[in-house]
């Protein structure tokens, strides 16, 4: 099956300043459909802030973000269009995982049955009744992913989703994301686990100090004989220890 790849997510000169601190200086990149795009950068490079602006949670100081060609600041969010997981998980510790998903499903106008479906998908069907405060880090991560998947969205934006996942969970997530891309959907994934990400992503965006320092296909890097990890170190001025 072939898909016509289109630019689904567009960051156009995004900048974000908090007082004197510049979290994102100037970021422009695009994310296409039918692919998994990796979003990489050192701690403090502005990845999470950029993702927040891209999905409309934070307002840019400058620049604009677009989803499916529409400015994100004029969009009405819809769980069927975009699913987002940005750390931390964002659930009341006194509420059960199932109740957390049920509130969001109700807000989104989704059937209650969808809650059980995503709990099963992320492997939390047994733990759904337990309070989120009792969850391990990996379980919280899975709950966050369940929220992102709740509306079976066309676009997934995931901020470091493999953190805390066990090897089985990482393999499950890799398969899930590849399946989403194969369906022609759009996945933007930030991660520090480059060896894992190299098995998952098609395209690469590398940021450093609030700016994009590289955008291109992973295959281009590999064609030059560079691994993702080596390219990352070269682009971000770091060194392998």
């Amino acid at each position: 099956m072939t898909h016509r790849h289109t630019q689904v997510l567009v960051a156009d000169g995004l900048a974000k300043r908090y007082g004197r601190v510049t979290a994102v200086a100037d970021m422009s990149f695009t994310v296409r459909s039918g692919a998994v795009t990796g979003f990489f950068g050192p701690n403090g490079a502005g990845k999470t802030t950029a993702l927040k602006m891209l999905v409309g949670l934070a307002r840019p100081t400058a620049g604009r973000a677009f989803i499916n060609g529409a400015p994100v600041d004029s969009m009405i969010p819809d769980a069927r269009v975009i699913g987002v997981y940005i750390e931390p998980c964002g659930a009341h510790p006194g509420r059960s995982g199932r109740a957390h998903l049920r509130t969001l499903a109700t807000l989104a106008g989704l059937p209650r049955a969808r809650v059980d479906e995503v709990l099963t998908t992320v492997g939390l069907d047994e733990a759904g009744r337990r309070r989120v405060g009792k969850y391990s880090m990996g379980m919280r991560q899975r709950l966050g992913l369940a929220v992102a998947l709740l509306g079976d969205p066309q676009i997934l934006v995931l901020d470091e989703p493999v953190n805390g996942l066990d090897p089985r969970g990482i393999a499950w997530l890799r398969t899930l994301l590849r399946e989403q891309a194969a369906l022609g959907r759009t996945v933007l994934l930030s991660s520090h686990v480059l060896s894992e990400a190299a098995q998952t992503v098609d395209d690469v965006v590398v940021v450093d100090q609030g700016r994009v320092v590289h955008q291109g296909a992973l295959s281009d890097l590999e064609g030059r004989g560079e691994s993702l990890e080596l390219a990352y170190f070269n682009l971000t001025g770091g060194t392998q220890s």
Partner: protein
Amino acid sequence: MIALLRGELVKTLSTRTLLAFLIGGVGFSLLNAVLVAVASGTLRGASQKAEALSTLPILLMVWGLVGAAGEHRHRTAAPAALVARRGRATLLLARLAAYGVTGLGLGTVMTGASLALGLPLLRDQPGPDLDLAQIGTVVAANLAACVLSAIMGAAIGALIRNQIVGVVVLLVLNFAVIPLVAGAQEGLANLTPFGASSILSGMTHDTTLSIAAAGAVLAAWTVIVAGGALTSERRRDLA
């Protein structure tokens, strides 16, 4: 909007916080009934007797504040905004309405507890008992105070976004600043949300404002604070 209201109600009902406030509110209402009807001497007139049936609107204000500010503490505001299919201000409006509904529920139970204990105790007081119309006024005024206070608390919580700061500010204003203002200028204190809710609930009586006027003052404050919260919600980052 109905789906948003339902979703926000599910939130308020799916933690133990509501139960804690319910127990605290009923406990206070019963304690107040005993203290006023039994331990505060002879009660003369309907307004003094009505004080035995009053609830504690500041508790409802704290309930709304803790819940709405908790959305930011626990970072649940962002996922809700990302799925709501409406703008942030509409979602916040639904949240305020949900706290109004739960305020009505809490107020109903608290007022019911006050009536159940307070009315029999008040029969030992001299003078005529409160008639049905007077009891109806007490009930309606207390429910109005509870609903408006819960909405206002939620609006303050959405503005401040910090539970501890919000609760401390509320309690200091209610129990320290406003009594000082009332000592110097009773009429001015009555025009504050705290003064007006105290009159509406029957805690303060025989003062410069009628119950209806106090209700109007509290409603006006609620609209102003809620308007500020809705305007602010559109402009601020959610995460």
